[in-house]
């Protein structure tokens, strides 16, 4: 950042940019592209679940030699659910959500000219891009992509004899994820350093918007937990390619005994979930931050219980690293550990409840501006509660026994982290679109997008709980082998129809997004009348964010409708009036 006037070429401005705003856009567009693939896959396998015997030309068209007369093969079904999960969790909701908004907002909201290391930030994005490319390439491998589930438990993921996707497909999956983790670590370190060191004058930690708190803590969780997944991936690569036995032991497959001895798949599960569980908070915390900000701004009220909100973010982050065993209650792990993990898991409900109540209270006696971002934020609170509450069933080891790995789980985590985080991402895109592209998104299309999505999402995931409670395991290619589940077939058709409706609604978003980039109404400097610093920068992007001095900060981010002020918002840069108390 030493030289503000150096000449930018097309390459340095749009491709290998070190400007956090451009990198945010790169993350967003890549994330959306991966999201389209991930959602499209879910449409394909939902067709299979609803009509297992029926032939579909769309399946014939896209699945090549993995289908027969328009009916997909069991292996590609498993591959689709695997890659759907991988893409949505990591590529869309980790990189696409956190990557976009941490990059965009951290410098802008703390008053910094850029990230601490612009170069590292650029490398981080391009590693993410590379890992996306490898993941997409893995879809075209002859034997099909990885298909052992997104949790890639060995031995299934280690042995090509066990499932064809565990050949080249799994190799590429592991390579892609290893690169992804490197990217994510670089990003996270950058976010942490930037928040700690580059805050403008007056921006105390207790004046930071909750978005920044969320991104900051998310980055810490990422740094703590992602390396463990990397080690698990490396050990798995060793088992697969170099004959070690970290996770494998006593295996007899296709008529022969393999040489592995002494390893344990349960060890892999521990390593995987040591990241895997914090990962869901890596996904949801940024969404929570975004939603806190948008609900306060659009309710024209201060966020209720600002310090409690920070406290609960930290509590959730801490607890998130000691609850991983709740994914393993019936893994064969010592039942005593199950008791411990039940205790820590249900503790998480407390800070989560505090957050939910605080959001609702923030809306109470507000003057709610129904912008699209606000609608999605309300949607977020709703799905977070609906999905979070069933966590009381799954987090309780005793109750988990009979619903573990059924559709009840699928319904739970899709609502609480999938749909919720996607809503948070949509809310963020609608709200900060003017900061990203200097233009506004259309509100009518936004409303249509929201209402169709919200009805479809509940239409999909509410009935799905019952499918799980009927005892139907997840990842079944078809239920036709069990007359017991014949009565679930109708529910599955309803779910698939809502899924298609919801998927189709995203076309409205895509149209709105891409058209608005070019044709949207030019944004004004502070369209939502928000308090935070990013709205004091010029609409047109400038390298270094503020053309002159970085403004100093005099108050917290939530002085909405504060008595004694003319307007119903007070920028953080406004000095306290004489005798005015800081909230």
């Amino acid at each position, binding site marked *: 950042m030493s030289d503000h006037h150096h000449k930018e070429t097309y390459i340095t401005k749009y491709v290998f940019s070190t400007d956090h705003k451009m990198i945010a856009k790169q993350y967003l567009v890549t994330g959306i592209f991966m999201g389209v693939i991930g959602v499209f896959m879910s449409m394909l396998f939902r067709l299979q679940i609803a009509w297992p015997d029926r032939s579909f030309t769309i399946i014939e068209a896209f699945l090549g030699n993995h289908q027969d007369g328009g009916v997909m093969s069991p292996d590609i079904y498993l591959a689709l659910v695997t890659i759907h999960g991988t893409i949505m969790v990591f590529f869309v909701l980790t990189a696409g959500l956190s990557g976009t908004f941490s990059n965009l907002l951290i410098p802008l909201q703390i008053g910094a000219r850029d990230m601490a290391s612009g170069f590292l930030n650029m490398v981080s994005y391009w590693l993410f891009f590379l890992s996306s490319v490898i993941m997409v390439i893995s879809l075209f491998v002859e034997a099909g992509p990885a298909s052992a589930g997104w949790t890639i438990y060995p031995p299934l993921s280690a042995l090509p004899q066990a499932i064809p996707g565990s050949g080249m497909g799994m190799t590429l999956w592991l390579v892609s994820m290893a690169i992804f983790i490197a990217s994510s670590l670089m990003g996270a370190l950058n976010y942490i350093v930037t928040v700690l060191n580059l805050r403008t004058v007056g921006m105390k930690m207790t004046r930071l918007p909750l978005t920044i708190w969320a991104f900051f803590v998310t980055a810490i969780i990422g740094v703590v937990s992602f390396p463990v997944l990397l080690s698990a991936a490396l050990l798995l690569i060793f088992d697969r390619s170099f004959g070690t036995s970290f996770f494998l032991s006593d295996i007899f497959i296709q008529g022969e005994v393999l040489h592995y001895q002494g390893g344990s798949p349960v060890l892999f599960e521990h390593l995987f979930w040591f990241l895997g569980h914090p990962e869901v908070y890596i996904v949801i915390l940024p969404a929570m931050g975004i939603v806190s900000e948008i609900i306060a701004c659009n309710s024209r009220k201060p966020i209720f219980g600002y310090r409690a909100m920070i406290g609960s973010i930290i509590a959730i982050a801490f607890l998130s690293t000691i609850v991983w065993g709740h994914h393993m209650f019936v893994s064969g792990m010592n039942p005593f550990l199950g008791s411990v993990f039940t205790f820590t898991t249900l503790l998480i409900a407390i800070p989560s*409840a505090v957050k939910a109540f605080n959001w609702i209270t923030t809306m109470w006696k507000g003057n709610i501006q129904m912008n699209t971002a606000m609608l999605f934020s309300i949607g977020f609170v709703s799905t977070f509660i609906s999905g979070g*509450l069933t966590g009381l069933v799954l987090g309780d080891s005793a109750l988990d026994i009979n619903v573990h*790995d059924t559709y009840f789980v699928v319904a739970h985590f899709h609502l609480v982290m999938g749909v919720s985080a996607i809503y948070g991402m949509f809310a963020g895109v609608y709200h900060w679109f003017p900061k990203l592209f200097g233009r506004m998104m259309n509100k009518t299309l936004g409303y249509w997008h929201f209402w169709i999505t919200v009805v479809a999402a509940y239409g999909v995931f509410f009935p799905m709980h019952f499918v799980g409670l009927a005892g139907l395991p997840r990842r079944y290619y078809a239920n036709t082998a069990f007359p017991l589940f014949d009565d679930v077939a109708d529910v599955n058709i309803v779910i698939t129809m809502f899924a298609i409706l919801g998927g189709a609604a995203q076309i409205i978003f895509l149209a709105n997004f891409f058209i608005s980039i070019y044709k949207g109404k030019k944004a004004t400097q502070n369209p*939502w009348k928000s308090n935070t610093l990013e709205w004091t920068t010029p609409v047109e992007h400038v390298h270094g964010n503020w053309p002159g001095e970085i403004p100093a900060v005099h108050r917290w981010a939530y002085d909405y409708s*504060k008595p004694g002020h003319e307007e119903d918002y007070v920028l953080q840069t406004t000095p306290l009036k004489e005798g005015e108390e800081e909230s």
Partner: protein
Amino acid sequence: MTALLYILLAIVVAVAIWQVTSILNFKSVIATEKDNNTQGILFAVFGVFFYGLMIFSFVKYSIILLPDSASVEGESYDTLYMVTMVLILVVQAITQFLLFYFAFKYRGIKDRKALFYADSHKLELIWTVVPAVVLAGLVLYGLSVWVDVMDPSDAENPLIVEVYAKQFSWEARYAGEDNELGLANVRNIKGINTMGVDMSDKNALDDIPVRELRLPKGRKVIFKFRSQDVLHSAYMPHFRAQMNCVPGMVTQFAFTPSLTTEEMRLNDKTIAKVDGINKIRAEKGEDTYEFDYLLLCNKICGSSHYNMQMKIIVEEEEDFNAWIKNQKTMAQVVQ
């Protein structure tokens, strides 16, 4: 090639939308008072839809749920489940109502100023302490059930059964006269000895290998699970029982069957569910279904994961004893 066609079609649709939307006024971007009003009302309407969907689902889909538990341990599971579910539904009903109601009630009006209300220690204390107390109760209750289910050490004369998983079928082995399973390892798999039982172990000789699982009513059954290839999960939903089968180690789960297959077939909920299923099957021209307990695989294990099952029959203890007497022991089978 058709894929290309689909992609082209998608592009055409996109262009069409582009054209239509450019006619639309892209200038309307910020919510007006009118928008606040409409969207606020829509939230109220959605609230009604939301509760409607919940009630509808409960009414319409209750029939597909699992019938009453068929094991003693499962009964305490069901009670814990009911308590938790009632709690969940109460909290769900209240919080969602408040959310949608506030969205409706406080929809923006021009010139109204929101209430500046940033903090209340009292309120926050309430909604930290109340969930904490409720959860403490739930944790204690849940853990007491968990310990009961997972610790079968005080069972008198339990039946020991090994359940053996492989792609994509199940086998089982009863411990025989001595009620002690012989050692086993996949390295001993040979010919008819498909579970790799170690025939040099004297405990193994009287073990009884079977392809159909029969359990006596009223006697605690301790299952020992093994897998020969990948992870599987032995899921017996009617008994509220599940445990993963892990290659290289033996895992365990126990329950006491409390209803024979015959008794379960006469259970009201089972009858209603089976009638529902048979109505659907009749429409499709399939033969009639009769209820049976099942063991199914519930951990992704490969292509035929969706069809890895074994029938379980629960019968009175004397019937079970008569049946098992007629089964061949390992010694007889391997001979």
